[in-house]
């Protein structure tokens, strides 16, 4: 499979879940392993461009596919606008849900560059922030959307 643009090839047990493959085999520990039951959304990565919960996908199912993790957001030392938004508007407290939130909302902005607050809330309805910092997360996504629009406009 391709992970963050790099071709990787490993022999794994069929039962190995994608989240463990990323964290333990590839040492990409940015993806968090949370509830293990596809409820919390901490483990969200992109599979062929769509956000998915990596605790409920077998690593073997991703053979031949493209995976993108939170580690790929920062490029050449520059944060992705969604990361900048989370930073600017204090959209993380303990940070556990953050990797999943970032990947879920990055995918939202890729598909819908100008989402309403409601659309943002729907998009993250499968992601749980136990610090309950949802308001700031929604504001951060709006910040990123406006930042990206301004960059394009400028």
């Amino acid at each position: 499979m391709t992970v963050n643009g790099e071709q990787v090839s490993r022999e794994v047990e069929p039962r190995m879940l994608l989240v463990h493959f990323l964290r333990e085999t590839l040492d990409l520990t940015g993806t968090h392993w949370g509830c293990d039951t596809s409820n919390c959304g901490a483990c969200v990565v992109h599979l062929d461009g769509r956000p998915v919960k990596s605790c409920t996908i077998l690593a073997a199912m991703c053979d031949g596919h493209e995976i993108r993790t939170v580690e790929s957001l920062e490029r050449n030392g520059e944060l992705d606008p969604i990361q900048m938004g989370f930073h600017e508007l204090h959209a993380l407290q303990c940070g556990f849900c953050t990797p999943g939130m970032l990947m879920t909302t990055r995918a939202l902005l890729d598909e819908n560059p100008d989402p309403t607050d409601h659309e943002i809330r729907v998009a993250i309805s499968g992601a749980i922030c136990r610090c309950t910092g949802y308001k700031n997360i929604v504001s951060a996504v709006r910040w990123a959307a406006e930042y990206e629009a301004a960059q394009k406009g400028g």
Partner: protein
Amino acid sequence: MQTPAAFEYERATSVEGAIASLQRLGPEARLIAGGHSLLPMMKLRLANPEHLIDVNDLAELAYIREAEGEIRIGALTRHVDLLNSDVLARHYALFRDAEQVIADPVVRNRGTIGGSLCQADAAEDLSAVCTAAKASVVIRGAEGERVVGMDQFHVGPYMTAVGAAEMLTEVRLPLRAGAGSAHEKVERRAGDWAIAACSAAVWMDNGQLGDVGIGLSAVGLTTVHLTRAEELLRGTAPSDELLAQAGEIAAADCAPTADGRGPVDYKRHLVGVLTQRALRRAIARATNQEA
């Protein structure tokens, strides 16, 4: 850490190949598509297949198209694509109603209609949707295909008409004049299973209910098909009194159990209300009078 017990994995490259693998590997083999029902069950050891046959590469099973007076949906069509389908929204609006409240957007990127129907969980929404829509499914085996109506599809809790070494490949929805449909669900929190849900479809004919389909989620051992309420309404001009009667029948004919989602009397009451709401909305849509 929750990890499934060990199993062998293979990937199907054709429907025929998947069926041949099921035949070769026997009853301990299972197909896996989205995996969002099967993998959680495997983690909990509620399912322990020895072989998984991954069908995610069978792109020929991912489609929604109109053909021969039907809408045909490939088994590998994912929830997100059902949600976004304009063809479905135009002819069977209840799909979009349901897909907005099935799990969450990220889960909907993986789960498939074939997987949902074959899981046959009584609390699952699409089984009620397809029951109300009077859908049929195409089941393929080594000997060929057969078409089975939703009435014959559920044979027990988590059990369907899909036999050993068979695969559900397509869902067919009849295109009929005067159609309107709606799905009404109440859940404890966003993305949860239903406390109760009602799917309704109507086909209006000169101001009368030419035909009616009603299915309930989460209030029985299997999806509940409300045949008695359908019979009451068929051939009548809809009125508040009739819809209220249909709601009463729905509350009586379901079989909920008390659990963390509520006691039996609450669930029966809910079913009565949701059935009326779903029917009212379906009729409003069929007659272009939706508020």
